[in-house]
């Protein structure tokens, strides 16, 4: 059977159980595809030996009839997850050569469920970016192109390697992480599904920290059903993460009934931004119409503090990053600068961090240092934390009024060209997350679903935002939207 790499998780799972092929077959198909996809720069550390060993073990489990849903399915792992004995750099030069002596909780859970790791995936350095252009490994490239143009496009960020790899069928699915939109925006840019669960659903233990109060991991997949399957394997309480929720994990796939009759879907007026391209507005209106046709009730809602979400984020995230990234000092792991005669420990810290951190990471660490420094802590950091309370309250009010989920665009534009958004104007890049960042600030689950194509032939996605801990309901609504939109396009292979 050919093209096994193109399968969804659910189709591959069913095929494995029906003994149509083995995990070894699936794994070889993906490894071959990865081999030929160097131009995408999605996989940055390949682990074929681990993959083959895990596939063999998975086939034995399948034969023995002891096989959880993820058993034998080859996936890619974002470089932000600590993987034992395998390079884990968060796409930063400062972690050059770092091989963790431990496994992150999420990868442990996936491996316990029988998943096969093909390798580590490219990303923005420390997950700071929206285009995968801040990576020490170089840019990941979107498998999609504008019509017949050859301009290389961004696969989005920060989980750009994950989105490129899944979209190009190099793997069946991938892990991502999302601090301000880093799963949902790249998913939208590459025509795949990405869900960020409720804050606390997935353990952060062993995931390189960026902004701890916002970071959540989640799956990036080819369908909503796949997202349900993989999310279930990733979720669950973990004593090693004090913010991990001790709640039962539902069988998300079983909740995909497709029945959304009577669901109330909110359309927030504040997301109708000036300058949003017509095709994005149309995509949004079409999505609302599809949900209405499926029996949902569409209601206009107001989230009045939306416009303050990005400025709030750009205080809180850098503040937490400046604290989290203080650990990269050249003492315990990673890069250490060479010192000249007479230089002391402060020179070591300063030179190590100047050499090891890229420009955007340095910028955010310093902005964070500034907003936390004496005299500015109240004016910036505390102010932002208060506005964050108001942003969360906006959502609580909407849900209290009976709204089940909120529909918005996932991104303000289709994927842009690499280098098209100038490095000298960071704000321009930050605006990519305008629709997604509120969800992290409020700790809510959000999912991006591909529902259309731009005039230039690129995928476009819509975002659904759910109530806390109601990923099951959210996935079901997303499943209905996915079915109605019928997005089936794939990028034409040029790599």
């Amino acid at each position, binding site marked *: 059977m050919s093209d096994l790499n193109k399968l969804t998780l659910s189709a591959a799972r069913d095929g494995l159980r029906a003994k149509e092929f083995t995990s070894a077959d699936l794994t070889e198909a993906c490894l071959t595809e990865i081999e030929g996809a160097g131009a995408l720069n999605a996989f940055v550390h390949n682990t074929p030996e681990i993959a083959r060993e895990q596939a063999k073990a998975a086939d034995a489990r399948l034969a023995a009839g002891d096989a959880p849903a993820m058993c034998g399915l080859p996936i890619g792992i974002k470089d932000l997850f600590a993987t034992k004995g395998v390079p884990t750099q968060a796409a930063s030069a400062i972690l050059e050569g770092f091989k963790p*002596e431990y496994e992150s909780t999420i990868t442990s859970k996936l491996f316990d469920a029988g998943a096969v790791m093909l390798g580590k995936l490219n990303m923005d350095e420390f997950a700071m970016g929206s285009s995968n252009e801040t990576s020490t490994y170089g840019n990941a490239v979107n498998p999609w192109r504008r019509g017949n143009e050859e301009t290389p496009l961004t696969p989005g960020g920060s989980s750009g390697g994950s989105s490129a790899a899944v979209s190009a069928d190099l793997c069946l699915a991938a892990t991502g992480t999302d601090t301000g939109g880093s799963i949902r925006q790249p998913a939208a840019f590459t025509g795949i599904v990405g869900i960020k669960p409720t804050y606390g659903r997935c353990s952060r233990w062993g995931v390189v920290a960026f902004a701890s109060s916002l970071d959540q991991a989640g799956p990036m997949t080819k369908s909503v059903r796949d997202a349900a399957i993989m999310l279930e394997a990733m979720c669950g309480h973990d004593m090693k993460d004090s*913010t991990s929720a001790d709640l039962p994990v539902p069988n998300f796939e079983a909740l995909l009934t497709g029945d959304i009759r009577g669901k109330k879907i909110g359309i927030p007026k504040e997301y109708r931004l000036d300058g949003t391209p017509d095709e994005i507005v149309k995509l949004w209106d079409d999505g609302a119409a599809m949900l209405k046709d499926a029996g949902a009730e569409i209601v206009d809602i107001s989230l009045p503090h939306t416009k303050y979400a990005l400025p709030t984020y750009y205080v809180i995230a850098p503040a937490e990053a400046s604290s989290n990234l203080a650990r990269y000092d050249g003492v315990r792991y990673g890069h250490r600068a060479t*010192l000249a005669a007479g230089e002391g420990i*402060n020179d070591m810290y300063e030179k190590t*961090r100047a050499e090891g951190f890229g420009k955007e990471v340095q910028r955010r660490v310093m902005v964070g240092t500034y907003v936390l420094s004496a005299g500015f802590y109240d004016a910036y950091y505390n102010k932002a934390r208060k506005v964050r*309370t108001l942003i*969360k309250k906006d959502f609580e009010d909407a849900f209290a009024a009976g709204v089940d989920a909120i529909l918005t665009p996932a991104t303000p534009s289709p994927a842009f060209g690499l280098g098209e958004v100038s490095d000298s104007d960071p704000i321009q890049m930050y605006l990519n997350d305008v629709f997604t960042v509120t969800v992290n600030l409020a700790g809510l689950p959000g999912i991006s679903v591909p529902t259309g194509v731009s005039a230039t032939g690129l995928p476009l996605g819509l975002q659904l935002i759910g109530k806390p801990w109601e990923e099951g309901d959210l996935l079901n609504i997303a499943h209905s939207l996915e079915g109605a939109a019928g997005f089936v396009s794939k990028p034409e292979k040029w790599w």
Partner: protein
Amino acid sequence: MSIDIDTARRVAKLARIRVEEDALPALASEFNAVLGFIEQLSEVDVEGVEPMTSVTPQRLKRRQDGVTDGNMQEKILKNAPDAREGFFAVPKVVE
């Protein structure tokens, strides 16, 4: 609020990131762009609003205050740029 070169130098120092003198003006101007963007927050009335400490209202789990892990000196030192005799080694700190 405008950031001058002295402030940029001080912030770089606090963050322990070496920034050469000739790079400071550009850094100050980038800070100003970001802070100008953040400045919008001053419009928001936050009178009586509590600053958020935890996005999900849950009480942190308690556990017995006991040793649950340890004895892995070798693993902990494994990735150190310079480890000697069971310790992390750094340049001389005390004169």
